[in-house]
C-alpha cells in the first residue's frame, strides 16, 4: 500500500512541477494578474512553443490521472480482488 502511495505521490508532484513551470510560461500573462496558470495559451509561434503547450497538458493530466490511479483505482481493485478471494 505504501508503494502505491509513493507512486501516486511521485506522479502527482513530479508532473505537477512540470505543469507548474509550463503553465507559468504559456498560461500566465502576468504574475500580477488574477488569472495565473489557467489563462488560455497563445497560438504557438514556434515548434518549441507548440511542444511546450502540449507537454503542459500532458503533465497536467499525468498528475491528475496518476494520483487517481494509484491512490484510488489500484487500491480499490486490490481490495475488490482480495475480497473476492477470501469469500
Amino acid at each position: 500500500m505504501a508503494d502505491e502511495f509513493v507512486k501516486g505521490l511521485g506522479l502527482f508532484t513530479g508532473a505537477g512541477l512540470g505543469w507548474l513551470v509550463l503553465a507559468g510560461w504559456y498560461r500566465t500573462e502576468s504574475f500580477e494578474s488574477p488569472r495565473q496558470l489557467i489563462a488560455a495559451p497563445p497560438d504557438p509561434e514556434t515548434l518549441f512553443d507548440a511542444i511546450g503547450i502540449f507537454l503542459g497538458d500532458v503533465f497536467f493530466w499525468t498528475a491528475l490521472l496518476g494520483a487517481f490511479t494509484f491512490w484510488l483505482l489500484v487500491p480499490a481493485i486490490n481490495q475488490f480482488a482480495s475480497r473476492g478471494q477470501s469469500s
Partner: protein
Amino acid sequence: MTEDDTQEPKTDGGGGTGIVAPDDETPTWRQRKERTQGLSRLTYEYFERARREDEDLRRESDYVERDVLAFPTWPHEIVRNLAITSFFVGMILFLSATLPPHIANPANTNVTPGIILPDWYLYWSFGLLKLGPLNPELSILGGAKLMSDRTYGVLANGVIVGFIAIVPFLNKGSARRPVEQPFWAAVGVAGVTFAFTISVLSVKNLMPMDVHLLFDLTFFAPFVTGCLTYAVLKTMREGYMYDLNRRYYRLRPPK
C-alpha cells in the same frame, strides 16, 4: 547487558532489545540474497550494516541502553541531511532558472497604489477585517448593526488572537502523534485550513471565482477538512500500535 533481572519499568517496555532486532530476527542469507537490485540493495546494505554495528555495540558490556535511542550523527543523520539539503537547493536552482521572478518597476513613493495589501503572512488578519456579512443586523435595534463592520473586523482579530494566546496554557496531554488524539488533530487541521481560506478571502478581488461562493467556502472548507481528518485518524487508530511509542515516551493507555 542485564535482562529480565530487574522488574523496573523501562521506557522501551523492558523486554526485547529496543531498536535492534534480536538475534532470531536477524535476516537469513536467503533473505539477504533476495535484494539484488541497485538502490534497494544499497539501502538494504546500509541498514543492515547499521543494524550489525548496533548489534556489535550491544554485545559489549559497557553498552548502556539509553532512555531515548537515537541514530548516530555520522553517517545516518549527515547523509539524510545532505539528501534533504540537496533536494531543496536543487529545487531553488530549478525554479529560479525556469520561473525567474518578475521584477516590477521601482515603487513611486509619491503615489498611493490602487490596491494596498499587507505582506502575505498577514493576509489572515486582513481577511478577518472583511467579515462584514457576518455582522448581524439586530431586529431589536430596528435592523441596525450593533457596531460598524470595521469595528466588527477588529474585534474578530481580538477573538482569534485571544484564542491562540490561550493555547500555551492548555494541558497538551500525553499524545505525541495526531492519531492518538483525533479530535484535537481535527481541530488543528481545521484551524490551519481556516488560516488559509481566510487569507484567500482577504484577496478575494484577485480570486477567479464568485465572491459569495468564496465567502461560504472560507467557513465550510475548514469544517470539511476537520471532519475528514477526524474520520481518517479515527480509522487509523484501530491499526495503531501504542507500544511503538512507549519506547520513547511514557504514554497514558488509550481509553
